[in-house]
């Protein structure tokens, strides 16, 4: 029979005020297996802990139940005390007499009876505890940063500056992301590119950062500290070592009419191109879809003119396998197409544009050199209407959330317009103004009051063309719901920020969860905002939810600090509360029948396949195996397993069963 010690804490008056602690101790002493039972005023105090340590030694205890407060509070304290007393710390259990009993009941005999029940349950559990030992997992101190926007850049630089290696993967030919497309940034109106470019260059030059542009994550396996990523480096069709970035190639490329993605289709580019002049790396790639050679088999003009002979038409995609210890997902967002708002006429009228397009028009490096011109005829608009919430906050259109930045950038756009077109009239249609940030409200007020932008609170019902003017029709709900009609030369829609079109696919590749809008889900919305539910994967920026730049940068730094924290140790030590698959003797070797239903249930993808083979290598059966590095001990697989082949260490079926039977 085990030798269990029971230690009842009064917690001052907290427990003893309602529970007869001496009685609990007395009754507990009679439980089968209990050889020692005492009560004490403060078990967590030094003398209290000494009671436990001494009893372990004097009574040769094989298990300890401390009946006190929540294990959240003092389990580490008492487990440490047990360890110091020479008992494996996992042979110590706590019965929560405070939160589960004394605090929630009145002083009645039944309260003491419940306390006795709680102790008895834990006695029965601890009898079946087995010594457990922390699991140590080695850590590969390299981080994989997915995405080279401002979130990825910030996270990569912070991690790299903390002294760890970083591998950055960017899908486009250049890092920079959406921030590189922006003109000025609210609320300070500093030039986006001016503040971003130095960071981009720093990334490129950082000795700790390896940069893969024009590359994507192909596959991610493994677990915290030990991921294995496969990166697909798409064929750039140039030899990056030889290319000097001189630009002759794209000057000579005959196909100049390709709509530039960077310029939001408001400008053009060539088939061999760098996305924008400040690109990092500043080396071109060939867009094979538009390259005449790849499409028609003829041309090769760039090759002819390349002074360093760097063009490689036969280049293939390359798969690179890297080992990393942590992953930061910073894959950003996309702007919602407005096709789904046919009443706003986007796509039908060229002068109805998105906010991001306006950024390019307003940008000094943009297609118009910073002059606000109508895409249709190049005229400077005299009247311009901005429509906020063009898609956001509209469950009927499938986007129920607020895109968060539109109020601010719309104010900024209106302000920029007024700064550039002094005589122009600017209208902003809005639902509410959400300007909750440092200096944000002041910025909006400035737009309204100093720059005299007309803010109209109301929804736009329809936009249509009348003699070359865009008639914006809506309701001004502030003036007795008066219908309002404005004849504008240009309309800017603050379209919703949405997840990248392949966000779901990426999330599945990384085996992390995502919400109904395909934004990646953090582990806890408040307390673990940068961790994902798969340990070792962190999230930064707008791939998690719409965010502005300061928030994105803050989250990126937070993710980086989490990574740096993870990398501060050579090995991860974690509680051995993980699932295990039982093994038996031959000929079955395990009760697991390999149905792998647990595999689809595991939220952490910790279930692996293990082949059991004979000595001469013949496959006997394939059974489940838990990757102890990945397992978070949630127990879902245990509940699901029909043959009870999976057990959760520290919370075994036998223990839980014994707890229930003892009630």
């Amino acid at each position, binding site marked *: 029979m085990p030798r269990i010690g029971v230690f009842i804490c009064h917690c001052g008056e907290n427990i003893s005020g309602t529970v007869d602690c001496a009685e609990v101790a007395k009754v507990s002493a009679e439980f089968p297996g209990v050889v020692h039972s005492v009560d004490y005023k403060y078990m967590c105090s030094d003398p209290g802990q000494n009671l436990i340590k001494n009893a372990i030694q004097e009574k040769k205890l094989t298990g300890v139940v401390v009946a006190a407060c929540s294990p959240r509070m003092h389990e580490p304290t008492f487990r440490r005390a047990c360890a110091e007393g020479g008992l494996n710390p996992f042979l110590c259990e706590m019965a929560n007499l405070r939160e589960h009993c004394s605090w929630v009941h009145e002083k009645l005999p039944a309260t003491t009876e419940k306390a006795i029940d709680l102790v008895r349950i834990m006695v029965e559990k601890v009898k079946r505890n087995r010594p457990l030992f922390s699991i140590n997992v080695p850590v590969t101190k390299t981080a994989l940063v997915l995405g080279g926007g401002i979130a990825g850049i910030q996270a990569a630089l912070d991690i790299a500056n903390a002294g760890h290696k970083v591998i950055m993967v960017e899908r486009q030919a250049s890092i920079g992301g959406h921030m590189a497309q922006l003109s000025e940034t609210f609320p300070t109106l500093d030039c986006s590119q001016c503040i971003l470019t130095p960071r981009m260059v720093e990334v490129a030059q950082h000795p700790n950062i390896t940069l893969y542009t024009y590359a994507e994550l192909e596959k991610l396996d493994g677990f915290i500290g030990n991921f294995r990523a496969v990166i697909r480096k798409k064929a750039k069709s140039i030899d990056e070592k030889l290319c000097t970035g001189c630009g002759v190639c794209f000057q000579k490329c005959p196909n100049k009419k390709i709509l530039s993605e960077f310029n939001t289709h408001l400008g053009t580019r060539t088939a061999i191109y760098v996305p924008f002049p400040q690109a990092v790396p500043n080396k071109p790639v060939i867009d094979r879809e538009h390259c005449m050679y790849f499409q028609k088999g003829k041309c090769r003009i760039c090759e002819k003119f390349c002074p360093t002979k760097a063009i490689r038409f036969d280049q293939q995609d390359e798969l690179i396998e890297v080992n990393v210890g942590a992953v930061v997902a910073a894959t950003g967002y996309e702007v919602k197409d407005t096709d789904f708002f046919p009443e706003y006429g986007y796509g039908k009228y060229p002068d109805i544009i998105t906010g991001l397009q306006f950024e390019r028009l307003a940008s000094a490096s943009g297609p118009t050199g910073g002059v606000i011109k109508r895409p249709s005829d190049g005229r400077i608009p005299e009247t311009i209407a901005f429509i906020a919430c063009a898609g956001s906050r509209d469950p009927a259109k499938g986007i129920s959330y607020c895109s968060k930045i539109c109020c601010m950038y719309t104010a900024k756009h209106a302000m920029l317009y007024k700064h550039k077109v002094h005589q122009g009239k600017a209208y902003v249609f809005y639902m509410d103004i959400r300007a909750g940030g440092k200096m944000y409200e002041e910025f909006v007020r400035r737009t309204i009051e100093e720059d005299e932008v007309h803010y109209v609170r109301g929804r736009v019902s329809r936009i249509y063309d009348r003699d070359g003017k865009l008639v914006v029709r809506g309701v001004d709900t502030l003036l007795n719901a008066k219908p309002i009609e404005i004849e504008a030369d240009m309309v800017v829609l603050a379209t919703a920020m949405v997840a990248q079109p392949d966000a779901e696919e990426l999330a599945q590749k990384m085996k992390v969860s995502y919400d*109904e809008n395909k934004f990646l889900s953090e582990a806890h919305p408040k307390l673990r905002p940068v961790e994902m539910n798969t340990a070792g994967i962190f999230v930064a920026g707008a791939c998690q939810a719409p965010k502005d730049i300061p928030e994105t940068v803050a989250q990126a730094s937070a993710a980086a600090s989490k990574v740096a924290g993870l990398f501060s140790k050579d090995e991860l030590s974690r509680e051995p509360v993980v699932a295990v698959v039982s093994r038996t003797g031959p000929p079955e070797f395990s009760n697991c029948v390999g*149905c792998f239903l647990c595999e689809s249930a595991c939220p952490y993808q910790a279930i692996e396949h293990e082949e059991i083979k004979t000595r001469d290598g013949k496959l006997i059966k394939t059974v489940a195996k838990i990757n102890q590095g990945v397992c978070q001990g949630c127990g879902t697989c245990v509940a699901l397993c029909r043959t009870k082949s999976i057990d959760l260490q520290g919370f075994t*079926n036998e223990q839980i069963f014994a707890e229930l039977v003892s009630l």
Partner: protein
Amino acid sequence: MNELQQTAKDLLEKNAVAVVIGYGMGSEPSLRRAVFVRKPDQAPQLIFDESCRQNLAFYVLKPEVKALGKAAVVARTPTLRTLLQLATENQITDESVVALPVGNGSVQPLTNFAAIEQYLANVPRGFTAQEQQELAAIKSKTLADRWAFWKSELSRCIKCYACRAACPMCYCSKCIVEVNQPQWVPVPSDMLGNLEWNVIRAMHLAGRCISCGSCADACPAHIRIDLLNQLLATEAMQQFGAEPGLSVRKDYALATFKPTDKEEFIR
């Protein structure tokens, strides 16, 4: 020779399979029993008619039958669905089994799971009118009456486990009733143990059971275990859209979460 017999004979002659698992004459004129045809000239033993009820998919997993080699199974719709569900659960592979669909005219062998999926796409499914009526009758009972009904049914259980043995989805090498650390289900057949056994089995089959009825056919005490399983199958269908055995896609209702899950039971 009819088409079934001819098809079986061809498969055996071509060595496409080592055994054809089918139905043959049983002890009584009205009874059919499983036969294991291994020689082409035995093919005339095979019969198929209304009396052929057993879900032969069970035998695909039986070690002694497996040892004979690749098998063709005379398969009614439930059997086909069972095969797909077994495939979903990694118990059989495309290479281990050929299905001979019966009951729909042609006996064209289905040599892979994709073919079975395709075949099943055109087969009507759902409970029969009689089954639906029985289910509705149970559901319309008051809780007390329902409890009384099941108590009376399950009190007859002698824990012979014929239901489990006959069920092709009960393929665990060590069933939970045999796992004794802890002893999940009391060993003897008294009311508590009977209830626990039958309820646990029903839960283990929820979302997996394709309602072939083999359990009830096998029960020597004539307990309506099939009703219990059908009730849970209905729940799995209504709550989670679970229709097991229609594809090899892994979407076990109890293991996966879908935003469309109703989860009315926890409201």
